[in-house]
């Protein structure tokens, strides 16, 4: 895949849905075939536009889940109650349908292997999506730098990309993944059971002295408290990049 040209005015293009993957009961990955896709960088997102029969249009942004190296473009969408676009994408969309997309967009919350590391990724709920693109890029490029994901979910059933994360952590040079399950845990769970806080970060984050690049994504209150805590741990503010999804999620 060509490196994305983030220049120039973007126009709407059509992608065909080739696969749908139910990640959790509310979250679905949409795999698209997009002719003339210019490529993208890990962390970027696309705008998706739906047009109803009466001409009414609704548009939302979704983070790209696939790595720049992947053949196809994947978006992972969380269905939000009363979310007119997300409920359609998670509930009604079918393989073979076409979707209008514009992108890729993003030049700040992006990571390429050339930017170095080690990489610290902290995600809350569906905030893990752009971080997954970064992790997949890290894997695909066989980068010789460390990567760690700290991922907060409500329960084990809410963990997106659960199986893939288990798989990559056991591969050589694979990333380290630390989960925290804040509402309920499966029997025998020995991991974290609370919201990400300074203590947890002190235990899991790369030390500031190793000059990590940090990316935090998820609900606004989550992102802001984690960013503040990393700075207190000594991370230079410029090394901590944030993407806020608003009150509840993307």
């Amino acid at each position, binding site marked *: 895949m060509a490196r994305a040209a*983030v*220049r*120039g*005015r*973007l126009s709407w293009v059509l992608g065909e849905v080739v696969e749908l993957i139910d990640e959790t009961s509310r979250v679905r990955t949409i795999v698209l075939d997009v002719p003339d896709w210019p490529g993208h960088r890990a962390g970027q*997102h696309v*705008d998706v536009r739906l047009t109803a029969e009466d001409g009414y249009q609704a*548009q939302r*942004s979704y983070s790209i889940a696939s790595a720049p190296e992947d053949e196809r473009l994947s978006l992972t969408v969380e269905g939000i109650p009363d979310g007119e676009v997300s409920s359609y994408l998670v509930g009604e969309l079918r393989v073979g349908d076409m979707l209008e997309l*514009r992108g890729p*967009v*993003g*030049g*700040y*919350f992006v990571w390429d292997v050339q930017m170095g590391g080690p990489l610290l990724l902290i995600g809350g709920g569906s905030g893990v999506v752009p971080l997954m693109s970064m992790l997949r890029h890290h894997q695909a490029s066989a980068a010789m730098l460390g990567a760690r994901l700290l991922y907060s979910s409500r329960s084990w059933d809410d963990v997106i990309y659960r199986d893939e994360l288990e798989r990559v952590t056991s591969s050589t040079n694979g990333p380290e993944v630390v989960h925290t399950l804040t509402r309920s845990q499966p029997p025998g769970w020995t991991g974290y059971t609370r919201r990400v806080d300074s203590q947890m970060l002190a235990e899991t984050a790369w030390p500031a002295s190793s000059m990590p690049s940090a990316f935090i994504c998820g*609900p*606004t*209150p989550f992102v*802001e408290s984690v960013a503040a805590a990393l700075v207190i741990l000594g991370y230079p503010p410029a090394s901590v*990049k*944030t*993407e*806020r*999804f*608003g*009150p509840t999620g993307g």
Partner: protein
Amino acid sequence: MDSDAMRVDGNAVSGILGEVFFQEMTAARIACGGCGKVEAVGAEHVYTQAPGIVMRCCHCDSVLLVVAHTEQTYRIGLGKARWLELAEER
């Protein structure tokens, strides 16, 4: 001034900024005339629960930019942004 939980950041409005500025804007840098701090647009606070979007400095809350998209017109309020720096197209 808007509730903290509702705010997003420059990443969330990259679409409309791209329409206005004809290029990717989240990596553009903006200097606040209120406190002087320079940040990437993607890092600044943005409020979208309104007719238009309001971008406020993530340090001092000064209004940096307002974008209202009315019928076939974009009206951009330059607020307290001292300057906006865009990379040249290649």
